[in-house]
C-alpha cells in the first residue's frame, strides 16, 4: 500500500461526531430549552428552582440524544450498515455505537444544564440543599440517561422491524415522546408515594429502564437476522 500511515479516528469516535452533526437540531433544541427554563427558574422570585430544576432536565436530555437514533436509521436506509457488516462490524457494535452516541449527546445536554443551573444557583448566593443534591443524583441524572437510551433503543428496534417512514410516523418522529415518557411516568409514580420512598422509586425506575435497554439490546443483537440491518432500497 502506498499511503503514509496516518492514524484515522476510531469508528466510535467518527460515529459520535456524525451523530452530533446529524442530530444537531435536536441537540440545539435540547440544550436551548433546558437552559432557557434554567434561566427562568434562576430568575424566579418564588423559589421554584430547587424543586423544578431537577425535573425539567431529563425530558430535554432525551430530546438532545436523538442524534444516536437518527444516525442508525439514516445509516440503515442509506445502506451504510450493510457495508459495515460486510467489512466485519458485528450488528451488536452498530447498535452499541448508536447508543454510545446517544449517551454522549445526553451528557452534553445534562452537563450544560447542571453547569449553568447549579453554577448560577450558587453564584447568586444560594447553597445546595441535600434535597436538591438527592433529586439530581437519584432522579435527574439517572432519568436523563434512562430516557435517552430507552428512546434510542426502542427506536432502533422499531426501525429494524419496519420499513423506513418519515415524519411523525417514523421511529425518529416518535422517539422524543418515548424519551420523555420514562421521566414523566416515574415522576407521577413518585409523587403518589410517601416522601421516604421517593428516591427509591425514581432511582429504581431508572435502573429498571436501563435493564430494559440492555434487554432490548441483547434481544436485537442476538435474535435479529442481519437482513434487518439492510437498506430496504
Amino acid at each position: 500500500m502506498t499511503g503514509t500511515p496516518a492514524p484515522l479516528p476510531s469508528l466510535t469516535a467518527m460515529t459520535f461526531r456524525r451523530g452530533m452533526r446529524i442530530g444537531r437540531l435536536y441537540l440545539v433544541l435540547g440544550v436551548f430549552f433546558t437552559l432557557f427554563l434554567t434561566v427562568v427558574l434562576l430568575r424566579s422570585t418564588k423559589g421554584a428552582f430547587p424543586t423544578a430544576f431537577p425535573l425539567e432536565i431529563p425530558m430535554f436530555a432525551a430530546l438532545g440524544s436523538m442524534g444516536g437514533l437518527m444516525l442508525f436509521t439514516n445509516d440503515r436506509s442509506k445502506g451504510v450498515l450493510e457495508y459495515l457488516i460486510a467489512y466485519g462490524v458485528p450488528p451488536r457494535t452498530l447498535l452499541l455505537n448508536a447508543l454510545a452516541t446517544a449517551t454522549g449527546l445526553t451528557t452534553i445536554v445534562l452537563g450544560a444544564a447542571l453547569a449553568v443551573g447549579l453554577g448560577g444557583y450558587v453564584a447568586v448566593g444560594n447553597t445546595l440543599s441535600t434535597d436538591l443534591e438527592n433529586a439530581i443524583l437519584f432522579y435527574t441524572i439517572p432519568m436523563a440517561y434512562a430516557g435517552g437510551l430507552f428512546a434510542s433503543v426502542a427506536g432502533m428496534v422499531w426501525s429494524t422491524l419496519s420499513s423506513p417512514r418519515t415524519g411523525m410516523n417514523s421511529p425518529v418522529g416518535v422517539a422524543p415522546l418515548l424519551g420523555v415518557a420514562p421521566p414523566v411516568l416515574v415522576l407521577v409514580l413518585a409523587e403518589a408515594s410517601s416522601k421516604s420512598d421517593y428516591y427509591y422509586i425514581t432511582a429504581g425506575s431508572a435502573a429498571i429502564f436501563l435493564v430494559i435497554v440492555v434487554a432490548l439490546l441483547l434481544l436485537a443483537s442476538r435474535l435479529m437476522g442481519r437482513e434487518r440491518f439492510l437498506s430496504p432500497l
Partner: protein
Amino acid sequence: MATTDLPPLPASPSPTPRLACADLSSGYLGKKVLDGVSFSVEEPAIYVVLGPNGAGKTTLFRTMAGILTPYRGSVEIGGRSIEQQATRDRLHFLSHVDGIPDGLTVEEALEFYAAVQRASHGDVDRVLGLLEIETLRAKFFSELSAGQKKRVSIARIFLKERDIYLLDEPTANLDPKVATEIRDLVLKLSRDRIVLYSSHNLFEAREIGRYVIALKNGRLALFGRIADLRSARYTVGIRATKGEGQLPSSARKGDYFIFELAGPEEVPKLLKELEGKGVQIREVKEMSNPLEDLFT
C-alpha cells in the same frame, strides 16, 4: 479517462484464492431467494452474474459478502469460511446502494471507510486521485451528480487491496462515459483478481466478462465461458450501398436489413448470395447476443 491513462493498481498481495459457494441457500426473513447454488472460481477474471430481476443476484452477492447468513451451504475463500474476519478481509463488496453516510464530505466519507478497513489518510488521497475526484474532496455527497456519487461509492473498494471483488451493478444508471471509465477500472482490476460483476446490460457483460454465472429463480442456470455460448438463433444486420431493392424490406431494423441464420458460419454464404444479386454490402453487424437466451 482512457484505459491507458489509468494509474497503476497495486499488485495482488498473494496468489488468487479459490472462492467457493457450496449448496448455498439464502434469503430474507425466512423466505428463500437462493436455492442450492454451487460454483467455485479461482482464475483471475471478470465473472458476469446475470439473471432477470428477482433471480437472486443481489442476494448471492450479499451472502458471499457475509452480510446474509445462509440457510444452508457455505461460502469459503481459500478454504476458510466467510464468517471469519480474516476471510472477510480478502473481499470487497460494492452494493447497488451508495452506502455513503449522510452529512459527510467526500473526503470524510472515504476517511470513514478507510477507518473501517484499517487504511490510512494516504490511501484516501490515493483513491481520490485514482478516481479523479480530488476536486470533489470538500463537497458534500448530497451535492454530487449520479455519476460522481457512483465514483465516490466505487472509490472505497480501492482503499485497501483485496483478492476478490463483488460488484453489484456498478454501472447501473450511469451515462456511457462514466460507465466506460468504471468498466476500464474493473477490467484493469481483473488482471490479477477475481471480480464478480452483476449487470443487466448484456452487451457490457459480453464485452468485459470472461465467464458467466447465470441465475434463474434463485438457482444456478449456467456457469461457463462466455466465448463458448452460442445463440439459439444468430441474427445479422446488413447495410448496403447498392441494390437495397434485393433485400427483404419486411425484416428491417433502422438502417439494417435483418437475416436470421443458424450460426456465424452461414454469414459468408449469405454475403456471396447477396453479392450475386447485385447488392453492394457496406456493413455486416451481429445483432443478437447469446446472453439474451439466459433471460428467456
